């Protein structure tokens, strides 16, 4: 199976930041050192790669999950940052028997608190096609008379009503973007809960969902509310035109 670079399949109107030219083979004398996959630095970089992929390739009909981090190396590039080389095995939570391999490069920029890590991915193998499910979801939402509103997905007991599972998976796409944009070597984020979601009807062909997402950050253990707007279209994929950390948490 020839490798398919992720992101090639979708013509993105989304504003990806231009990548700085990286010195081939890494800067002055920096070799990539092997990292134990069980140690946290590799795990954090892998999480960023998966979240980025969720943003690129996720949708209401599929949710990617890291099954195993098989190999990790790190290269310290002078004046640039730390680059992680990862070999991942991924699965679709809705189709667990099928796994897919992915190699990823995650570059955390030196000293930068404001720029997102650069992620490049190559996926070997095919992810399940969700064209049918995507179209059905799209038509269902478009034909709703009242805009969809929901909260607490999952609820306190971990329940997600089946008809809200696609919304849950779209929240992963939205949180995938936010997590990718806000990750550093000292963070590890997961989507803890969709606190609130409201569909906003549009005049164009996109679906719009305004989310309040709770993101759990593992190192600080904080659960942080984020307001995120997600635009999604079955062929064009996802875009996050705006996102911001919401007000301070409760007492």
């Amino acid at each position, binding site marked *: 199976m020839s490798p398919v670079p992720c992101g090639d399949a979708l013509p993105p109107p989304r504003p990806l930041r231009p990548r700085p030219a990286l010195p081939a083979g890494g800067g002055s004398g920096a070799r990539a050192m092997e990292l134990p996959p069980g140690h946290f630095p590799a795990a954090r970089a892998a999480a960023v790669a998966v979240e980025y992929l969720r943003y690129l390739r996720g949708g209401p009909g599929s949710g990617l999950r890291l099954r195993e981090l098989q190999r990790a190396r790190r290269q310290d590039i002078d004046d640039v940052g730390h680059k992680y080389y990862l070999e991942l095995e991924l699965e679709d939570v809705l189709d667990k028997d099928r796994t897919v391999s992915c190699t990823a490069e995650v570059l955390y920029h030196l000293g930068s608190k404001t720029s997102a890590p650069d992620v490049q991915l190559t996926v070997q193998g095919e992810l399940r096609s969700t064209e049918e499910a995507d179209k059905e979801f799209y038509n269902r939402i478009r034909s709703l008379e009242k805009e969809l509103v929901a909260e607490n997905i999952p609820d306190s*007991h971990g329940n997600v009503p089946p008809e809200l599972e696609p919304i849950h998976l779209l929240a992963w796409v939205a949180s995938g973007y936010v997590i990718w944009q806000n990750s550093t070597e000292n963070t590890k984020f997961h989507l803890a809960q969709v606190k609130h979601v409201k569909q906003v009807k549009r005049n164009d062909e996109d679906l719009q969902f305004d989310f309040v997402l709770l993101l759990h950050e593992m*190192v600080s253990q904080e659960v942080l509310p984020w307001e995120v707007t997600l635009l999604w279209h079955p062929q064009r994929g996802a875009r996050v035109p705006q996102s911001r950390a919401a007000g301070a948490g409760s007492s």
Partner: protein
Amino acid sequence: LQLDFWLAPRRLGLPVDIRVPFRSLQAVKAHLEASGVSYSIMIEDVQALLDEEQTEMLRSSRQRSVDTTTFNYEAYHTIDEIYNFMDMLVAENPNLVSKLEIGRSTENRPLYVLKFSTGGTNRPAIWIDTGIHSREWVTQASGVWFAKKIVQDHANNEGVASILETMDIFLEIVTNPDGFAYTHTTNRMWRKTRSRHAGAICVGVDPNRNWDAGFGDAGASGNSCSETYHGPYPNSEPEVKSIVDFVKSHGNIKAFVSIHSYSQLLLYPYGYTETPAPDEQELHELSAKAVAALSSLYGTKFKYGSIITTIYRASGSTVDWTYNQGIKYSFTFELRDTGRYGFLLPAKQIVPTAQETWLALKVIMEHARDNIY
């Protein structure tokens, strides 16, 4: 029309029952009336009935059960239900189980520990706690399951029955009751205790940063509003102090396991320093065995290692203190899952999680029994 026949047409003279979707209602009525077919409405709104049934099912799964056999282990429970469970377990097994009150929380809730013992005096013991971080609901739920499992094993003379011949087991299920109550009433994502200290702007201390091992060092926060606030001084939290006092006065605890979620990890000291624990090799090998046993049941993958290399630097943590007290087999578990549901693990995963974790715990307990120190 999408008609759903609940009683299909069989022959002339027999009735037919049809569930009619709302949008086809007028059309069906018109057709029946025009054809002179009489009908009556059995159920006005099927969806309403289903919704009511759903609510009722949820309610009845939380109705107070009369014994630990009918108790619903596949659901999350309130603190009252868990405390009631404990009393029932003791009442049903008075020769094996007793309930100790080791202290009171900030909000004056009793801190209960179940003691499982077949006799002896101050036998070498194993300690297990769950729920020290209140939002980690699968842990308290697993603790309830463990309690019942110990009793069952003993009754059937299998599993941990052999361990109970020479050792006692102490199990604190709701280690942070104030926080737990708060997750039910107010904030499902609450982690800390509910203490208010002089000069602190915010409520609560992280009970897993409040222990006297590297207290206040990097890996905890001095800001009371932080989720990893270490508190004003070690053991400032009664939930922590009561365990410290218990461990010290018992003096014969040989294995100490503190259970958290989520991440699927088995961790051993240290969290506050990169210096390897003197027993690191043995703890690492024991972890490998425990994780293999856990994985054998449902294939759940766990990673393992020291706290500081595997997850993050953390100071003032429970098992760093217990290890420094000389309790060699000190472990922290992070149970299911790896982030898909996180703290909000579906209730149907409670029992599988408890079952697999129990296999790992047994490996640790058996090792402690077989390696006396």
